[in-house]
């Protein structure tokens, strides 16, 4: 009987690993499965970075093609999804550089600002504030809100909070340190909260004129 027991879960193989192996062995259909599994996420990430639909479509195609061509270089010590996201982030940044020729594009853009790092609006939200808007209105509010964030904050928030990468995976994907990811995530969350409060915050009751002058007289002196 073995004396060393494997840690629970450690030996469980991620389903992507088997798919990657099949692709490496020449099974293109297995790659079809991987593309279907992650295409929406990759599109969303590309759209968040490039802020342009056409670019996002190109990035998505290029990222999957590049991942396919470079699959032999995939080490398997990170998740296939994280590896794919890293390719998509790089492709997105390259696309941005092309658009803004000569202008530096990096993950550090505009992150020096302290705007929004201290909460100012303390109005509580209604229990289900989304219900006051149609799906289309809500999507517009969320788009406008997140587009207003500096790029370096936006990407961290999207990867960590929307797409569910861990702090460590986000750091690895973006080439940032873990403390840098944490600091950007906090500021991104606080800035988004502050902006959404403008839409979802309960209005603080104002003192009605009748209440200010209970007898109703004397106001028209």
């Amino acid at each position, binding site marked *: 009987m073995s004396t060393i027991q494997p840690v629970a879960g450690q030996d469980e193989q991620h389903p992507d690993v088997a798919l990657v192996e099949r692709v490496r062995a020449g099974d293109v259909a297995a790659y079809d499965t991987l593309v279907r599994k992650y295409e*929406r996420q990759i599109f969303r990430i590309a759209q*968040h970075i490039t802020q342009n639909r056409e670019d996002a479509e190109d990035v998505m195609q290029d990222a999957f093609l590049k991942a396919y061509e470079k699959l032999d270089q995939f080490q398997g010590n990170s998740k296939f999804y994280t590896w794919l996201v890293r390719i998509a982030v790089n492709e997105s940044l390259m696309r941005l550089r092309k658009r803004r020729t000569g202008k530096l594009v990096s993950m550090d853009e505009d992150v020096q600002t302290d705007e929004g790092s201290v909460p100012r609006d303390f109005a509580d939200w209604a229990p289900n504030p989304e219900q006051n808007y149609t799906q289309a209105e809500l999507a517009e509010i969320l788009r406008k809100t997140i587009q207003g964030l500096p790029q370096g904050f936006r990407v961290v*928030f999207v990867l960590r909070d*929307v797409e569910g990468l861990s702090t460590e995976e986000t750091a690895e994907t973006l080439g940032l340190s873990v403390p840098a990811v*944490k600091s950007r995530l906090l500021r991104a*969350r*606080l800035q*988004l909260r502050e902006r*959404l409060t403008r839409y979802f915050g309960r209005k603080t009751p104002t003192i009605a004129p009748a209440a200010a002058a209970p007898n109703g007289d004397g106001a028209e002196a």
Partner: protein
Amino acid sequence: MTCTEFLKILDDVIDESIAVETRTEIELHLRKCGHCEVVLNTTRKTIEIFRRHEIYEVPTEVSERLHSAIMEKCKKAK
């Protein structure tokens, strides 16, 4: 615990990676500070809303077109 101290660990509170001994301090602070309680709750809701709602919807036909294009390129690549 002050508001500034609470704000510093807000992310850890949200991500539930707080040491047991700090939890009591946080609970005490939240009980007496309505502002921090609102910030905590609305930041949680902010994350939830962005998670729940698809803001860049891809129509099925676009998704299918892109998918076919990717697979076509991959088949040619090898």
